[in-house]
């Protein structure tokens, strides 16, 4: 199958600082790919570049066969920012129905997405009165309702309790099973094990493009946190002092 996302030679500068250094990778369709790395490693910038709202210095990004940010991709690619980007002074339902109308999806699709993220009971509440975890899920619902073919999620599980986190990951895999391509960023390494594939990002460089199993085998440890550390040390050893 064709790749859902292909990135070659991607360089991004913000101000005078280089944030992404010559990235190249491929995201296979219908899988959950994890974008793992510490805070400040460039995950959000990469996701913004994929969705076409980031000024890029050089490189090529192809999403579903088209240049990132193409008008025709806007109804096919869903993007959920790290900070919940929903209207605090609207109810969950009003938010969902507004975004649904932008995608030409009906209010039934909006209400279903709200129920799918477990906010059915809170649908009539103002977003500003929700907990931060609920806000994040409201924001997620507004992307799900468009039934995107590619879903880019920036740290969607931050601040969620463990039960919700597991349920959300189950939902991601259900979406992938139905054909959606997901790229999920996280700085929590214990989430790496839940991904089909892993991209490890550190200081704007791609350290690994692998599967959890292959990464464990390569580094000789079952602990992915430890595996990440070993990959970092490997790279540092390779660099001339």
């Amino acid at each position, binding site marked *: 199958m064709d790749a859902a996302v292909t990135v070659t030679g991607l360089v991004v*500068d*913000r*101000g005078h600082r280089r944030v992404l250094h010559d990235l190249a990778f491929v995201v296979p369709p219908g899988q959950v790919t994890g974008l793992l790395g510490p805070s400040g490693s460039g995950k959000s910038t990469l996701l*913004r570049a994929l*969705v*076409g*709202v*980031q*000024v*890029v210095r050089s490189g090529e990004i192809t999403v579903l066969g088209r240049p990132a*940010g193409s*008008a025709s991709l*806007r*109804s*096919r*690619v869903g*993007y959920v*920012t790290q*900070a*919940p*980007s*929903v*209207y*605090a*002074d*609207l109810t969950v339902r*009003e938010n969902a129905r*507004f*975004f649904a*109308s*932008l*995608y*030409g*999806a009906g209010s039934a*699709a909006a209400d*279903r*997405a709200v*129920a*799918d*993220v*477990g906010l*059915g009971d809170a649908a009539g509440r*103002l977003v500003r009165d929700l907990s931060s975890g609920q806000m994040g899920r409201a924001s997620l619902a*507004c992307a*799900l309702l*468009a*039934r*995107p*073919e590619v879903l880019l999620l920036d740290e969607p599980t931050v601040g969620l309790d463990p039960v*919700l986190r597991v*349920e*959300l990951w*189950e*939902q991601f*895999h*259900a*979406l992938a*099973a*139905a*054909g959606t391509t997901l790229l999920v960023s996280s700085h929590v390494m214990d989430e790496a094990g839940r991904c089909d594939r892993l991209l490890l990002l550190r200081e704007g460089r791609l350290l690994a493009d692998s599967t959890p199993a292959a990464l464990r085998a390569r580094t000789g440890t079952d602990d992915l946190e430890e595996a990440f550390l070993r990959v970092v040390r490997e790279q540092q050893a390779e660099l001339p002092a």
Partner: protein
Amino acid sequence: MTAAPAVVRPGGHSHAAPGATTLAVTGRVLRQLRHDPRTIALLLVVPSLLLGLMDALWTEQPQVFDRVGLVMLAIFPFVVMFLVTSIAMLRERTSGTLERLLTTPLPRPALLLGYGAGFGLAAALQAAVTTAVGFGLLGLETAGPVGWVVVIAMVDAVLGVALGLLCSAFARSEFQAVQFMPVVVLPQVFLCGLLVPRELMAGWLQAISDVLPLTYAVDALQEVGSHPAATGRMAVDLAVVAGAALLALVLAAATLRRRTS
């Protein structure tokens, strides 16, 4: 999450019609206002209270109140809508919803037109209330029909919305946004002919006054004030104000960058 995981197949939505997305934005803006009753109350009541204050100020000189009060009907909605819109747009920017909107199929002109229509409607309501209070309770008098006063105030409010949208592109914080008000609005108020008749201004001030859109809104109101029927000059004035609003919306769309660093 008690519901079973969603197993919805991706894709397959029809596209929203262009007009539908504009209406969706308008509806959303009005819904946000509806959840904020205090803002609605302020929008509707404050201009009338200020007009009442002016009436009291010029009790002995009702002809001054007729002149200044009438012009105020253009200035209030312009100022208020400029402020409300620039703050609303700035919130959209800082909350991340603007970036999100730019990744959806919503065209940028539809976003701005939707905003213009939403706040324009709110402004129409405000203009209707203020005009009703001015003419009904405070004894404001014009030679021409009051209906035109409401129309002029409305178009002027849309100008405020459009300039607010444009200026918010250059504001990075609420502090900056609020200070665009004196920069953009006050010179227009000073030079519109309210404080000093335009004929008495120095040539260069008149030249500046000539290119400021509020001048034309005020001139249109003065036409209504002094002529029993709608004049051609008033129509031209209104067209200039509407054209300036449209130009500001186009510029706002042009400055709304999809890609940022």
